[in-house]
């Protein structure tokens, strides 16, 4: 069964001399249960594509049929009337987590129910005991149960991102779209976030589309990679085939951006641990617990 179907999607930004096609007659299909990486250098259209999939951005008039599980998201540059019913089935994870920093973690997860409960309950923030238990379970699954009552702002980036995944969990999302979920995280936190996304895909059969800046994560976690360059799909196939040579042929000198491991703390270095490193590990017991 097809999870996401995109046909002939074109998006132009700017006007006059500054016109630039961010997406150019792009077509793509993702099958149910797949875990697909979306790679490409900055400005290649990864985020724009993901925003189209959820209807946050509309395609140019007359282009772009997008549906998720046969439910229309947008067609011909117009948003579907029943967009909310579609969105309820899609979990979204953003680069900057987008949690409400003043609210406790549990509430930030509970809002995942907002799309499926009556408006008046959402308005008053009335969640049932059952819903709270489900939210706690979701937090437990991403290893954050003990932080449930803490404000989101008191947690590290990696923890906040895992809470965003827990929000998608309570939503019973059939598709998770993750827009550069690890771009602002350190390698350890990145690995944990990718592990959780991968577990959701394997254990729950959730379809996952994740845009990534670094090819090595795509190779490690996603069987299939779609590579974008200037709004066009330049490669769509097994991630294992993404050799540096292939990338070089796809992106030219831009391929460095995708390959250079951006890792300030390389775990391979066999030097005695500095005090700061030990301190960092001690401060984040939750990371170690997962």
């Amino acid at each position, binding site marked *: 069964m097809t999870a996401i179907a995109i046909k002939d999607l074109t998006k132009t930004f700017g006007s006059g001399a500054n016109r630039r096609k961010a997406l150019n007659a792009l077509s793509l299909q993702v099958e149910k249960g797949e875990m697909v990486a979306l790679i490409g250098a900055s400005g290649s259209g990864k985020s724009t594509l993901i925003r189209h999939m*959820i*209807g*946050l951005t509309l395609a140019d008039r007359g282009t772009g049929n997008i549906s998720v599980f046969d439910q229309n998201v947008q067609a011909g540059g117009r948003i579907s009337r029943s*967009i*909310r*019913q*579609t*969105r*309820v*089935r*899609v*979990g*979204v994870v*953003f680069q*900057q987590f*987008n*949690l*409400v*920093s*003043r*609210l406790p973690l549990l*509430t930030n997860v509970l*809002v*995942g129910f*907002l*799309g*499926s409960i009556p*408006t008046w309950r*959402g*308005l*008053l*923030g009335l969640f049932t005991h059952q819903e709270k238990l489900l939210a706690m379970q979701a937090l437990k699954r991403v290893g954050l149960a003990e932080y449930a009552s803490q404000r989101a702002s008191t947690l590290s980036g990696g923890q906040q991102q895992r809470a*965003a995944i827990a*929000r*998608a969990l309570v*939503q019973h*999302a059939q598709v998770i779209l993750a827009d550069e979920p690890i771009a602002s995280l350190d390698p350890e936190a990145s690995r944990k976030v990718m592990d959780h996304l991968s577990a959701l895909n394997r254990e729950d059969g959730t379809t996952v589309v994740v845009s990534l800046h670094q090819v090595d994560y795509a190779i490690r976690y996603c069987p299939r990679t779609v590579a974008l360059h200037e709004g066009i799909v330049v490669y769509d196939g097994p991630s294992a085939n993404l050799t540096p040579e292939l990338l070089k042929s796809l992106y030219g000198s831009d391929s460095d951006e995708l390959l250079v491991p951006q890792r300030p703390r390389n775990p391979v270095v066999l030097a005695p641990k500095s005090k700061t490193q030990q301190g960092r590990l001690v401060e984040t017991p939750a990371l170690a617990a997962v």
Partner: protein
Amino acid sequence: MPISPAVSRLPLLPDRYARPSLPSFMAYLVAFAFAMVSIQNSGLSLERLLVGLPSISRMLDQMFPPDLERISSIGWSLLQTFQMAVAGTVLGIVLSLPLAILAARNISPHPVVYVLSRGLISFFRTVPDLVWALIFVIAVGLGPAAGTMAITIDTIGFCGRFFAEAMEETDAAPAEALNSIGASRTGMIFSAVIPQAFPSFINSSLFSLEKATRSSVVLGLVGAGGIGIELKVAMDLFSYDVASTIILSVFMLVLVVENASTYLRSKII
């Protein structure tokens, strides 16, 4: 050899050292003259102040010691004044919130609604509370109901604006996140926008309670309930000792409310 023009020319003075142009010089002159005439027309004079000094000292003399005989009736009246302030502020805050949602650019349902609700809030704010009190005294008669309504309207004018601005300043990303997972508009407002603006809501509400406490005292002067009328009667009857008791008790009330509000603000936010 002639000195080249580039060397001989003096560097230009910065703008603010240049002489004012004729129109702006005239404008300064007119503004200054108007200020002078205003002071002249207010009838202030050192002579009158000096002549008036004995009557001020006589009044101060009669004010002390304050007459505590009527303290319990003053106390009740003061309580009524404060209740007017509290009732008006609470009603005002409750009514401000929906109006502020319509008047916040980022969440207002429609530009026309935005402009209309902004306009209504501005109108409530720009008309002074004493004028509202006069209107409501005519509408519902003398007594605290009129004062409470005047404070309610005044609070809407104040809180409506600051609530709306607090919501406009919130981070849009969490709201977008809820939007993208199918939350309704109200769900998004109540789960992402309001929680972010909440500390600011508390702050504005406490300020408006302080403001309402002060104005509730004055509103009594036009018969809108509260202690103001007692003060006016005491002054009119030259009972300065009673008046001083009222003034001191009002002072105490305002002081307590302001300190309590400062304390709460530091506690909550």
